[in-house]
Structures are given as structure tokens and as C-alpha cells.
């Protein structure tokens, strides 16, 4: 298992460096407005930008309840929407993929599980959210393309200074 970790660490280090090599061009890409529609949609979930990992976080609105099945369904909708948006935005996109990651715990019911995590807020300053119930992990170069333009440089700088490893 250690050999696997060493190999994976090298792989993600390379992905990270490949992504950072394109930093300037990604920062200057035009705004795409991904998720404006989703964030205003009427349901119990909301999307947030996680930092420093390339993860789109899902939080649950205050006072709302949801099951893991509903969270999975929501992530499927987000993912399909995101793939279409990115394909329109970056015509040359060949590979797109992600991991739907749901926070889980021992329980007799299947309700979502709250955990804390660092997210980017309206003004780009990171804050800790206590309401993350899961996230969609996507590619190192896809994520900053999805980000609102004002967040891109902040996120890329944070990403550069963090260890990048995907263990899901």
C-alpha cells in the first residue's frame, strides 16, 4: 500500500504542476457564470467553492434536512450541468471526470452528515463552513476554469502551497 501511495503522490504532484503551468492563461479566461443558475435554484442544497482542493462543495441551507439519496441525485444534476457547460466553454476538452464524495457516518437513518471545510466567500476571503455535506472532486485544470474569475488567482495560489492528493 505504501508503494501505491508513493506512486499516487508523484502522479498528483505532476497533475498539480501541469495545472499551475497554465496558471496565467486560466486566470485570464473569460468569465463563464457556471453555477449562477444552480445557486439560485429552489432546493435545500447550495454549491460553494472549496479551497485549496479542486472541489465543488455542497452545503445544506440552514434548517433544511436531506437524505444521502437526495444529495446523490443533486450531485448527478450538478455534474451533468457542469460537463455541458465546460464542453461549451472549452471546446477542446477531451476528458472530464469527477468523484461524488458524500460525508457518511454510522447511523440508523440515511441523513446527510455535516463537516467543516474551508470555502471561498463572496469577497474571495476563505472562511470555515460547518455545513459541508459532501463535494464533487474534479480535475486540477477544470476547477479553476469553473471558478468565478475573481477567485481564480486566490485559489491557484492556495493550491500551489498545498499538498495535492486524491484518496477517494
Amino acid at each position: 500500500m505504501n508503494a501505491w501511495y508513493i506512486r499516487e503522490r508523484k502522479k498528483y504532484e505532476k497533475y498539480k504542476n501541469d495545472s499551475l503551468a497554465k496558471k496565467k492563461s486560466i486566470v485570464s479566461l473569460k468569465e463563464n457564470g457556471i453555477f449562477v443558475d444552480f445557486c439560485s435554484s429552489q432546493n435545500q442544497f447550495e454549491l460553494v467553492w472549496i479551497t485549496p482542493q479542486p472541489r465543488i462543495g455542497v452545503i445544506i441551507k440552514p434548517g433544511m434536512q436531506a437524505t444521502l439519496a437526495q444529495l446523490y441525485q443533486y450531485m448527478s444534476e450538478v455534474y451533468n450541468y457542469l460537463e455541458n457547460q465546460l464542453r461549451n466553454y472549452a471546446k477542446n476538452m477531451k476528458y472530464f471526470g469527477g468523484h461524488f464524495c458524500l460525508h457518511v457516518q454510522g447511523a440508523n437513518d440515511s441523513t446527510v452528515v455535516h463537516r467543516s471545510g474551508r470555502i471561498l466567500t463572496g469577497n474571495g476571503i476563505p472562511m470555515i463552513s460547518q455545513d459541508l455535506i459532501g463535494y464533487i472532486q474534479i480535475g486540477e485544470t477544470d476547477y479553476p476554469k469553473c471558478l468565478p474569475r475573481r477567485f481564480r488567482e486566490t485559489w491557484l495560489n492556495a493550491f500551489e502551497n498545498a499538498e495535492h492528493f486524491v484518496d477517494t
Partner: protein
Amino acid sequence: MASTSQHSNAINVIAYDDPTLPVQFVFDTPTPRPHFISIQKQRQPNVTSTELDALYQLIGRFLLKYPELNTDAIFSFHRGAWSKQNTRTWHAHLCVNKQAYLRLAKVAIKVDRWPCFLSPITFSFYFSQKIFRPMLNG
């Protein structure tokens, strides 16, 4: 690391089973890492929403039974280019704490559970992956 044939021919070492549910958890014996694989008892290329509902119940019960795994566990479904599966049937991953995983794997994955033609190869494979070395040292 492991070829397709190794995956499809691998013997499932069950990590958690509930006879009332159509899904179960097995150890990832072909590619050891700190996660459990959820599979259907009747393996299919796709998963139904009924099976997913059963899966969420299974996760809850599994993690209740093993409190040491019940910290920051993440259930992960792969999508798109990231879903390059080594098997043609549906599966997903329950990612858990590495130390707790190794303690459980040590008890569950015993060499004598493997058919004799497989065991020396399997054991040397795991040994080369250093899965047992931390245990031997510790």
C-alpha cells in the same frame, strides 16, 4: 498495478454483509488501499435507486458496527473519465482511516483463505506492497 483479469477473478473477502440488503462491502484485495468496495450481490453494470437506498443503510450499519472506522468516512462514486473501472460491474468506494483499515484487513485477509494455487503469489504480492510490513514492525 492489477490487470482486468485479476480484478474479475479475485476472490471477494467480505468486510460487511447484511443478509437483508442486496449490496455488501468487500476488501479491495487486487489494489490494496484504505477503502472498502461496495458491490451488488447480483453484480450488474449499473446500480438501481433501490440498491442505492440499501447502500446508504448498509454504510450506516457498517460504520455503527466499527466505531474505529466512523471518523471522517467518505463515500465516493466515480464519474466520467475518472470512472475507469477495473471491473465491468458497478462498484463504489467507502474511504476510511488508514490505520483502522489496516487493523481490520490484518484480521480478515488471511493467506489460508486463498486457494492454494493463489496463496504464495498473493502473499508475496501483498508483502511487496508493504501492506503487512507496518504490522510486522508494529
